[in-house]
């Protein structure tokens, strides 16, 4: 079978000693940032991106991917042990996870989270392997108009799934696209919005934007209210869940994996939404729903499976269509471009070792994560204690040197500082940065596809509704917009995205 041959190729790539090492390094760093307060995967990957330029393309992508899904594991550890989510996707886990820890069942909660995550990761890996190639085959048929409409759908979805006001989500998307216009116009060679600054001729580097908004902006925000992590952690003694626990976690893990995988493909904060959705479904269907909130194992198993599944299926649009669905994926796209790989549906056929290598490495990475997070839990518990006032100056230092090394010029340091102010100001105004960064990446691409589509159609704008694929995608986008404007739906959205 073709799938097996492909997975064999992936195994060959992923099992080389150096790739195993980078996979382990990635998931190790991922767990660390998941545990460390106030440091998320977007800022970390942006910081490490310049370092990966020196690596092989496969190795660098394997490591970056590991950081992302690894952070989902680490995030749950702090949720359970100190009632503080390490990552946004682990917010719901605090509810029952911390209750379990208070009842002296922290070990069982951690084990449940690891088992659920591992199962979900395995299923999601197979989903990518199974659905990736057919999706890419469909995408090869896409014309410029279809790509344009697909990106419209992607941005609409990120707007619908953003926190807070719909108007501001749209505003941030358009603002992001505007900022993406800075630089040289590819077709005419004209300099746009560069203010005759030579450093802006190549446009604003998205890593600079990400480091500023997600790195510095986040730090300033965290400094508003410095919570001390002085929670005393009782010794974790029993990691083995009881037979009863094992029996009860099966159904929630299955449900969580299913919901998480489905929602992970959506642009925006798929893995976050997945964990919330999984928890609310448990509240409705679980036999033990009256125990939820009081330390029920279902409240850990379902959201933890969902966020890990979602983190992994969010690779599908990036790997098959070349379109990022969240800021982390946008950084991965950037990493590929810098390595000389044009992301898109042809990656599977042109770079099979890369594509399958990444997929298989995800499964291996999940295996590493179980080992890292269960027997070695002691290390991470100590890491939770790292005080933030010593962590953030280090982040500032790494971002400053990292952003300089992109182009070896001070200009990027100053630009990052400006985006740091942006990040903080927009956070204060309740405007989310993630849709903006996504639009920043997609904006120039959309302009290019719009230009090509109109050129082919001889300037006829109806081309977007005449092509069946394009019109379907646009109709989906319109439906999503319409649905979210309905009062009953927008209430659900508010509840589901709260956190």
């Amino acid at each position, binding site marked *: 079978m073709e799938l097996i041959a492909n997975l064999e190729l992936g195994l060959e790539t992923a099992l080389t000693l150096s790739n195993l090492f980078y996979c382990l390094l990635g998931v190790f760093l991922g767990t660390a940032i998941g545990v460390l307060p106030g440091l998320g995967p977007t800022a970390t990957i942006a910081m490490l991106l310049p*370092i990966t330029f*020196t690596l092989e393309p496969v190795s660098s992508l394997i490591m970056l991917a590991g950081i992302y899904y690894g952070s989902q594991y680490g995030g749950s550890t702090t949720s359970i042990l100190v009632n503080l989510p390490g990552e946004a996707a682990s917010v719901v886990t605090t509810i029952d996870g911390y209750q379990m820890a208070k009842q002296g069942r922290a070990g069982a909660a951690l084990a449940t989270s690891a088992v659920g995550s591992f199962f979900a990761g395995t299923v999601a890996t197979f989903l990518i392997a199974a659905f990736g190639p057919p999706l890419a085959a469909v995408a090869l048929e896409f014309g410029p108009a279809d790509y344009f409409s697909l990106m419209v759908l992607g941005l609409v979805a990120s707007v619908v799934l953003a926190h807070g006001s719909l*108007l*501001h989500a749209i*505003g941030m998307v*358009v*603002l992001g*696209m*505007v900022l993406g*216009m800075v630089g040289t116009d590819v*077709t*005419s060679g*004209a300099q*746009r*919005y560069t203010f005759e600054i030579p450093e802006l001729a190549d446009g604003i580097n998205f890593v600079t934007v990400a480091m500023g908004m997600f790195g*510095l902006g986040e*730090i*300033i*925000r965290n*400094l*508003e209210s*410095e919570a*001390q992590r002085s929670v005393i952690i009782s010794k974790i003694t029993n990691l083995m869940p009881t037979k009863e626990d094992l029996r009860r976690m099966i159904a929630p893990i299955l449900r969580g994996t299913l919901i998480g995988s489905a929602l992970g493909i959506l642009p925006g904060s798929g893995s976050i939404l997945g964990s919330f959705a999984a928890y609310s479904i448990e509240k409705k269907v679980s036999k033990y729903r009256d125990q939820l909130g009081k330390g029920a194992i279902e409240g850990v198993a379902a959201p933890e499976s969902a966020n890990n599944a979602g983190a992994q299926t969010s690779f599908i649009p990036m790997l098959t269509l070349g379109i990022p669905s969240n800021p982390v994926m946008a950084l991965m796209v950037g990493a590929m471009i810098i390595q000389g790989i044009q992301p898109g549906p042809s990656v599977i056929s042109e770079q099979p070792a890369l594509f399958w290598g990444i997929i298989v490495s995800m499964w291996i990475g999940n295996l590493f994560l179980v080992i890292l997070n269960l027997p070695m839990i002691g290390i991470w518990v100590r890491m939770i204690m790292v*005080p*933030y*006032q*010593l962590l*953030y*100056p*280090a982040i*500032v*230092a790494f*971002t*400053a*040197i990292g952003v*300089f*090394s992109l182009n*070896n010029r*001070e200009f990027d*340091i*100053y630009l*990052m*500082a400006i985006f*740091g*102010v942006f990040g*903080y*100001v*927009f956070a*204060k*105004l*309740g*405007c989310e940065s993630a849709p903006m960064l996504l639009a920043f990446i997609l904006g120039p691409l959309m*302009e290019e596809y*719009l*230009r090509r589509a*109109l*050129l082919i159609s*001889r*300037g006829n*704008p109806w081309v977007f509704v005449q092509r069946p694929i394009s019109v379907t995608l646009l109709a989906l986008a319109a439906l999503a917009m319409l649905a979210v404007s309905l009062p009953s739906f927008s209430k659900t959205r508010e509840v589901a995205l709260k956190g």
Partner: protein
Amino acid sequence: MIRSTKDFWAGLIYLFFGLCTVIIARDYDTGTALRMGPAYFPMLLGYLLTLIGIISVVRSFISHGTPIGEIAFKGLFVIIGSVLLFGFLVRRTGVVIALPLLVMISASASDHFRWPPTLILAAGLTLFCVFVFLRGLGVPLPIWGSWFGG
């Protein structure tokens, strides 16, 4: 009477960027739909952003919103200032001076700032960066800058 300060300020930001985008784009060639010029797409976006800005500002007078809350001016100025200073100093003094300064100044923004651990952190990070980034990864930054004849 502004009822939602968040909507108001965010709206002004959209308006500012939207109008700038449109005004600057007038210097570029718009072209036609068939052959989009460099100004075509930005112009569209600029108008759209201006419109969103107007809606947001108008809405700020109509519907109530949550207040912005206290702004961490200290954190904002200290963090951003320390990064700008680093950019200015890094080639002039070199990493050995610019980096510890960056670490110490940015660390002082915290309410829990204390000298002893910060000094150790600054020294450790500087050593780490010199060996890993400068020596290991070859980032072309001077250890001693031009002010010291580096």
